[in-house]
């Protein structure tokens, strides 16, 4: 049949006849059993060990509030850092000569591809006492004595930005690729200078993607574990490392579960709020 006939046939007959329900059965069961159930078990563990509302009682615990504040500040700074570094880098990836743009993209992808643990370990080598960074700064006479960065909160900032950057750049980059170059040419033909085109055409187009990327980075940073564990110390626990301490060192699953529940609730609420304003998930039209 011709193409048009095929399409007519498909629409009258109701499509290819695929039953999506059957396809979705296995993934849905898996999600219910292996995603929803463990989360319900977490809630149950917290409630049965420490009672309902224990998650909110945590706000009265100084140690927890301290960790929470530190985590929020860390996440905000990391998100801001990703935006400030990520946007110029993405613009460079798209705006540069093809070969240069490709190299920049490859560098980004290779860091994304390398495990978070390995990357954080590299930062440990850089930032540890008598580490590489300290010795370079010594050589140039910029710093005397110990840099004392290790196990401090500021040490986490460059490392976490490094880890989170690909999560920010990839959605923004995808959005850049979708930018209609005709719009850019129209702007230029009307006499606008490149900076003006940037401000009035490119950045507004990228805004949803930048907001989406920033939201993702923020939510991921709240619960992030590896980098604060390796670069932090017992004096500057984040929510994640505090939970780890409760679980791995104090063997207190109940408190750990309650703290984890708090974290979960915060992230879920954030997600629901942000999703109203910024589309984090896009849905296309169904096939038939």
């Amino acid at each position: 049949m011709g193409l048009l006939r095929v399409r007519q046939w498909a629409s009258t007959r109701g499509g290819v006849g695929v039953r999506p329900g059957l396809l979705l059965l296995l993934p849905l069961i898996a999600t219910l059993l292996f995603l929803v159930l463990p989360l319900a078990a977490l809630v149950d563990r917290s409630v049965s060990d420490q009672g309902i509302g224990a998650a909110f009682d945590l706000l009265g615990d100084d140690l927890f509030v301290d960790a929470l504040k530190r985590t929020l500040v860390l996440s905000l700074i990391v998100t801001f850092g990703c935006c400030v570094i990520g946007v110029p880098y993405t613009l460079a990836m798209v705006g540069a000569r093809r070969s240069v743009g490709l190299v920049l993209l490859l560098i980004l992808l290779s860091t994304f591809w390398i495990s978070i643990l390995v990357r954080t370990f590299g930062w440990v080598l850089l930032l540890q006492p008598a580490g590489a960074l300290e010795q370079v700064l010594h050589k140039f006479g910029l710093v005397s004595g110990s840099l004392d960065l290790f196990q401090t909160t500021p040490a986490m900032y460059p490392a976490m930005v490094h880890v989170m950057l690909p999560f920010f750049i990839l959605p923004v980059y995808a959005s850049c690729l979708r930018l209609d170059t005709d719009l850019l040419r129209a702007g230029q033909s009307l006499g606008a200078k490149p900076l003006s085109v940037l401000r009035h055409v490119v950045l507004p187009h990228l805004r949803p993607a930048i907001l989406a990327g920033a939201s993702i980075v923020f939510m991921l940073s709240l619960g992030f574990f590896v980098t604060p564990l390796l670069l932090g110390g017992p004096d500057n626990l984040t929510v994640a490392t505090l939970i780890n301490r409760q679980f791995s060192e104090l063997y207190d699953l109940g408190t750990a579960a309650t703290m984890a529940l708090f974290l979960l609730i915060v992230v879920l609420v954030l997600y629901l709020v942000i999703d109203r304003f910024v589309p984090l998930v896009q849905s296309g039209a169904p096939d038939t």
Partner: protein
Amino acid sequence: MAPALSLVSAAIAVYLLLPVLIIFPVSLTSDAFLTWPPDLASFRWFSAFFDNPAWAHALEKSIEIALPVTVLATVLGTAAALGHSYARHWRRSLQTLFVAPFIIPVLAYALGIYSVAGRVGLVASIWPIVIGQTMVTLPLVFLIVSSGLAGRDRDLPRAAASLGAPWPRVLWSVELPLVRNAILAGGLLSFAYSFDEIVIAYFLSTAGGGTLPVQMLSAANEAADPTIAAASIFVMGVAMTIGILAVAARTWLARTPQ
């Protein structure tokens, strides 16, 4: 491109590469500590890595877990993507559901699995880890296969159906081959992700020792000798190999006629 932007992006590129590059010389040090600058050209830490039973056991465990995760995540993720592509209702909710594990704090999820595993008596087995990592990797496969499906020619399955093929046949013989690139990419990515996954593996690790990342984490927290640097180079090597395999497979698949 404006010179200021070139300079800035070059600086950022250096920032991105530096922590990774620094591990190379450290892994070749002949010192017993993670000193800088390293006393170069000794492969002793690579030998230490490969000969040490603790590290070899960890590597075994990583592979033992990564293989089932890859199979499960790819199958489930592809089914989810195909099902979603044909779903007429609840599309947004389905998509949110399948992408959700990406947003949920893995820490909370891992503790949840621990609670369930404790009740079911599975604490000493690898299956809680396999299940946990599968669910966390599923969104990746789902997104990759979904975007592969979005680009395909929708008339082909319709043509096949109009020629009388029942819908399972259409799926198996027409749809799946159309997205085999995406499925392959999803599979390779699942393996790489599971191999490097740390949070679930750490919280659910059994007394018999953890996966390679878990071993690296405890080494970094305790002894901190350059074996970790050698292990890191090895892990990077695995990741690079997988990446090269993925690119090679795509090129090869693109050449063979469908």
